[in-house]
């Protein structure tokens, strides 16, 4: 039985537990139809030209976790941003862990998707926002059909959230191979501010495949600052689908740090529905071994007078593969757009590969759109300069790598997180230099 067939039959099993009269039922059954029709994407599809899912679909994944496994705080504490106080939403094998989490209903809602879907109190929000911005590609549809658990965050108007919110998905490896599908819904009300950190972490070397969907809605003048930390073990793969809907005068920033995992595919989509939106997409990718990271971004400028800034840096070692596929789409009526995209890559070793496809599709004439893409190596002169001052080759390279990635790092607004990422970078490059400011 193929994995697709297994998922289709699992859906039938899941259906028994769901309420038939729920409005979500139609959404689910439409979604599973889309998945049934399209199946998993193949390399024949333009968007998946450089990334094949074939090897990921081979293991016999468990779709629902049967056994629960307890996770001790001391074992996982290092994965939290423990230096500061945060709200936490922790899921273990797709199941909410109240023991590790710290939620709230006090003025703002930081709670569970499962709770939000079943309580009538949240019904208007779910009806207004759920699956409203997500695309109907097969992987997103698959997630929609199986929506069960995830983070539900609702920030009311004019609320500035006083501390960051962490969303952490652990997988314990209690099944030989686990397929996880977290579904997050984040609604940020008018003039509200929020910072969110998202992380996927496997605690064993058993295979994990995560197909995550996050929908973010930013209402007028909202401010969303989102960080994705991808530093998983080498047997864990992630397909992350994020959809951001921006109303007027909003600022939405997403930083993606991809250091770990086997195969990571980031589908990051921005839709600017109102004027004066500002979208920022930044990322640092540092890979080794046979890792494969694919960044697929879309910024859809639907309204005039908006901006978007993209900056992705990649360092590819050993036989790793990097893909960057960035698209800026400007509608006919979206005049006075300032869209910028930069993608710089360094191949460190002979067998590393980079495939880049920065696209512009522009239908409005009064715009300023540009993209730049470079692939190169370390500047020999700079390396020599450092070495002539007594810095070892490894450290000199590390310094240059750090400098290369710094344009992305410097815009991280949570200081403790910045320190944490600095450490991750140093660790990944294999030096003990402290890059603290």
């Amino acid at each position: 039985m193929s994995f697709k067939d297994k998922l289709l039959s699992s859906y039938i099993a899941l259906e028994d537990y769901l309420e038939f009269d729920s409005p979500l039922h139609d959404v689910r059954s439409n979604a599973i139809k889309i998945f049934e029709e399209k199946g998993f994407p193949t390399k024949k599809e333009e968007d998946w030209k450089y990334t094949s899912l074939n090897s990921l679909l081979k293991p016999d994944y468990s779709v629902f976790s049967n056994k629960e496994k307890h996770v001790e705080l001391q074992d996982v504490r290092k994965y939290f941003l423990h230096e500061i106080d945060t709200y936490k939403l922790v899921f273990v094998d797709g199941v909410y862990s109240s023991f590790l989490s710290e939620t709230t209903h006090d003025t703002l809602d930081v709670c569970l998707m499962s709770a939000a879907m079943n309580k009538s109190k949240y019904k208007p929000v779910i009806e207004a926002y759920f699956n409203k911005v997500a695309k109907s590609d097969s992987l997103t549809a698959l997630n929609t059909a199986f929506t069960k658990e995830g983070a539900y965050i609702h920030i009311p108007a004019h609320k500035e959230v006083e501390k960051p919110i962490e969303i952490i998905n652990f997988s314990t490896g209690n099944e030989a191979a686990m397929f996880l599908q977290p579904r997050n819904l984040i609604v940020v009300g008018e003039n509200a501010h929020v910072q969110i950190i998202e992380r996927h972490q496997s605690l064993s070397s058993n295979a994990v495949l995560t197909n995550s969907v996050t929908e973010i809605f930013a209402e007028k003048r909202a401010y969303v600052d989102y960080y994705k930390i991808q530093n998983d073990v080498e047997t864990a793969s992630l397909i992350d689908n994020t959809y951001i809907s921006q109303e007027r005068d909003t600022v939405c920033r997403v930083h993606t740090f991809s250091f770990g995992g086997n195969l990571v595919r980031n589908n990051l989509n921005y839709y600017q529905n109102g004027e004066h939106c500002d979208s920022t997409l930044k990322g640092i990718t540092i890979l080794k071994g046979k890792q494969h990271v694919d960044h697929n971004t879309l910024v859809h400028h639907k309204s005039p007078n908006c901006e978007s800034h993209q900056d992705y840096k990649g360092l590819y070692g050993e036989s790793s593969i990097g893909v960057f596929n960035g698209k800026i789409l400007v509608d006919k009526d979206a005049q006075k757009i300032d869209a910028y995209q930069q993608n710089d890559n360094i191949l460190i070793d002979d067998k590393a590969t980079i495939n880049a496809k920065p696209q512009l599709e522009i239908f409005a004439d009064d715009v300023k759109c540009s993209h730049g893409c470079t692939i190169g190596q370390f500047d020999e002169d700079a390396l020599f300069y450092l070495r002539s001052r007594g810095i070892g080759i490894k450290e000199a390279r590390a310094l240059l790598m750090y400098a290369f990635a710094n344009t992305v790092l410097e815009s991280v607004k949570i200081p403790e997180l910045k320190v944490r990422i600095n450490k991750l970078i140093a660790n990944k490059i294999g030096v003990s230099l402290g890059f603290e400011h």
Partner: protein
Amino acid sequence: MKYTEDDLKKELETKEYEYGFYTDIESDTFPVGLNEDVVRAISKKKEEPEWMTEWRLESFRYWLTMEEPEWGNVHYEKPDFQAISYYSAPNSKPKYDSLDEVDPELLDTFKRLGISMDEQKKLAGVAMDVVIDSVSVATTFKKNLEEKGIIFMSISEAIQKHPDLVKKYLGTVVPQRDNFYAALNSAVFSDGSFCYIPKGVRCPMELSTYFRINQAGTGQFERTLLIADEDSYVSYLEGCTAPSRDENQLHAAVVELIAMDGAEIKYSTVQNWYPGDKNGKGGVYNFVTKRGICEKNAKISWTQVETGSAVTWKYPSCILKGDNSIGEFYSIAVTNDYQQADTGTKMIHIGKNTRSTIISKGISAGKSQNSYRGLVRILPNADNARNFSQCDSLLMGNACGAHTFPYIESKNKTAQIEHEATTSKIGEDQIFYCNQRGINTEKAIALIVNGFGKEVLNKLPMEFAIEAQKLLEISLEGSVG
């Protein structure tokens, strides 16, 4: 009177195709339709040897198994391949020894195209092969070239006179089954140019081919094969026009360039097929496969000015096989009204120290769509490969679109690749700056568009640069001074 961009837009919308006349030359046209018999008949008509007929049939059989590609960013009604006549030749007299024997009406056509051959003979020193409705009607300057050992003739003549050369190289750069239209061309090509430059020879003059579709209901399928032997140099020009017709005419050409060790080929195109009327009716479908291969230290440079055709689908490419070889691509594509262009290049770096440069300028006006699509691929052995790409788009009016689809693939850590693209319109501040200095808006727009395309126009041979500027002028009438 104040000249604004709206006026320019209006002028662009109302301007008509200047080369839209039809020459009344009696021609020998095949009935419409395509099957093995038609392929055989074309081959027979051209008195081709058996191997050529087989080669065509083989291509035809491949073609039957292939599907029309759909990945382009263009939308059009697919041509009905059974409604096209695959062979049309001017009837009068198939070959001419001197210009005096040429049908006077044909000569008149050339005059109207602005290519008075007498004049060119004297002044420009351009040797020219004219292909009307797929058949080569005149090759000037043949004698001068023969003295140098340069072979420049129609490809059907070359099949007769130099079968070994044709047999050895035909289909080596663009194989028969390369793509749908290349396979079709391989099966039914009726003529084209053949050129061979011997070792160490520097071709003393620009070689040139002029293509024209004259007859209604015909497709033009020409095939160009250009071989530059070791350390030789040639500059080759190609121009195209067609009469205005309501139906869509198909042009599916294949161009193959072979640059051997140390050779240099400069290939320039000014493409001005009929673009259709201002409502998007009629016009030529220009689906062309152009590719060159560079051996050691060789260089191929493509320069193109694309102003015509209803739909253009064309990617002149370089395979940089030999070490130290160089590929260049300079392009200006202008689209107006309902024109659609999906054009760009492929640079495949195989050899060490290979270099490539891509400069692409797109100008879209009216309701047109202009796309750049390019591939830069660095293979694992291409140490120190270097690429620089720049794609700039200029939008005039808010009903048109400009798109960029670059693909960049690197498998070598010593490669250095840079790509940049911008999209903008003519800045109000730029025009203001000119106005302030006493330059009226019309002149200012001309100045800015000229400046925008300068990097590419500069690469054209002198005689062509003038024609290209004239074309830009026509395509964006009122904007270029």
